[in-house]
């Protein structure tokens, strides 16, 4: 009885290792994040969007790695090889290109998409001599996950990020004003909204793929 017990323990230990070596498709898939594109037309005039699509890609990679649910391959290590073959890795990617990218990078899935819009708005409230404005920047990232072996989009997700700043004002024309806060939309809010959108997108993608959220 005793021996049987110990043999069972050994069997279970070895079995757990054996099982860990063979993973189902969605249990830690190998993915590579492509360069995200951006739709600049939707942005407010006072917002600078240079490089923000690259920022999006970086934060998506960070979020995917941080979630612990994906095996993320760094595309940049083979960027030269991809470029030599003239493969488009930015924005939307066709299945043929995706297949070749998958072969070069050794991944089954690629995540690609766009920083869809970054918008800014200011809303205010004035009651008698007290008022204020809240500046909000919203960013949306839309991503797709493609199985490069079939060219099928297996999942898509959208993430929204919001960042706010505010200014308060007390006074009137004849008396003068006391103001505290940030007068206008800042570039910090733009960055923060994009980072939040990246994390929100990965959270949603993970929830749809694995049934559990990556973040709280």
């Amino acid at each position: 009885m005793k021996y049987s017990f110990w043999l069972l323990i050994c069997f279970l230990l070895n079995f757990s290792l054996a099982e860990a070596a063979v993973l189902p498709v969605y249990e830690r898939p190998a993915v590579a994040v492509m360069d995200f594109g951006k739709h600049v037309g939707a942005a407010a005039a006072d917002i600078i969007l240079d490089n923000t699509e690259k920022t999006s890609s970086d934060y998506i990679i960070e979020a995917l790695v941080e979630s612990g649910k994906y095996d993320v391959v760094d595309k940049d290590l083979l960027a030269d090889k991809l470029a030599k073959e003239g493969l488009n890795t930015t924005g939307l990617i066709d299945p043929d290109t995706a297949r070749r990218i998958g072969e070069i990078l050794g991944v089954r899935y690629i995540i690609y998409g766009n920083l869809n819009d970054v918008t800014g708005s200011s809303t205010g409230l004035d009651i008698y001599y007290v008022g204020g404005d809240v500046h909000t920047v919203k960013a949306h990232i839309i991503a797709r996950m493609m199985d490069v072996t079939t060219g099928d989009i297996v999942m898509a997700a959208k993430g929204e990020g919001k960042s706010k700043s505010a200014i308060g004002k007390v006074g009137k024309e004849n008396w003068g004003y006391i103001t505290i806060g940030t007068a206008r939309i800042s570039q910090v809010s733009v960055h923060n909204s994009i980072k939040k959108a990246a994390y929100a997108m990965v959270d949603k993608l993970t929830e749809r793929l694995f049934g559990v959220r990556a973040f709280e």
Partner: protein
Amino acid sequence: MKRIFCVLALIMSVLVFGTSLQAEGASLYDYPNVAVLPYANKAAVSRELTMGDASLVSEFVIEQLLDSERFNVIEREMLEAIMKEHSFNMSGMVDPMTAVQIGKLAGVRYLVAGSVTGLSTKKSGASYSDSQWGGAGFNKNTVIANVTARFIDVETGRIVLAASGTGESASTNIEFTLRKTKLEDYDDGSYDTSGSYEPYDNTGTYDSSGTYETEGSYSTEGELVPVADTEVEEYAAADYRDNSVYETNGYAIGSSQYFAPGLYYKENQALLPLATRSVTRERKIVIGTQAFSQVQVRNALYKAVVDLIYNKNYGIIAKMDGKAKRRKV
């Protein structure tokens, strides 16, 4: 015999199990050799700032990784020596694939790649302002930098660790504004005050169109004698403009008509507003730093790198030690 067999089987299983755990951990947690690649600029830089070369961030990362005493950082010089030895192109360090090859030759297990993802400004503060007297304010100009890093296993190309950090550098100033507004008369073109003349004989005819002819003596020389100092009645019929400026504050100049406070001149005994304009003069006193500086950029980037490594919730060390918090979205 059976017992020995079982004990051996158990020991073997524990060893295999333990080794498999260690294999995952030993690489990153056992003082691995790492090389830091030059940083890239992927930031939307605020208009007030410039960010040409992000490679100084690589130096900050190397310094902090060494300080952490968790990594053996292979210096670029050493990599370059190997490159020379193996006849690699010296400029190849910017090519990650070459870096992988060099890294393997130098025994590097992980490449650290990263970028500057944000370089922004923020103006905030508190102020009081008055349109008449001026104001006072406290201004804070903050530069905020964001950097990322990812540890790439050179054997597999897999990213085993990724993190980001934020750093801020602020400068402040106190500003006082003294404002004075006054009404000033000026030549609006309708009234020539450039010449000087003396009261004239108004026996001539007067043309309502604006031309005036006189039969008497007339001179453009001498000084204008203000109406107030002369016999106004003598010139009442004439088209005469007084060079004097009258200031009224309600009922004035023997009139029952109300005049708003301001400056006036007399014309045909009528008091007409003088062409005036409001002139505001401002004097500003600023104590502190007014503009964003490159020193702030450098400091913000340095702090961002420190945050990247040591942030107790999301930093590299916290993630390696399993102490990182679950992020809220």
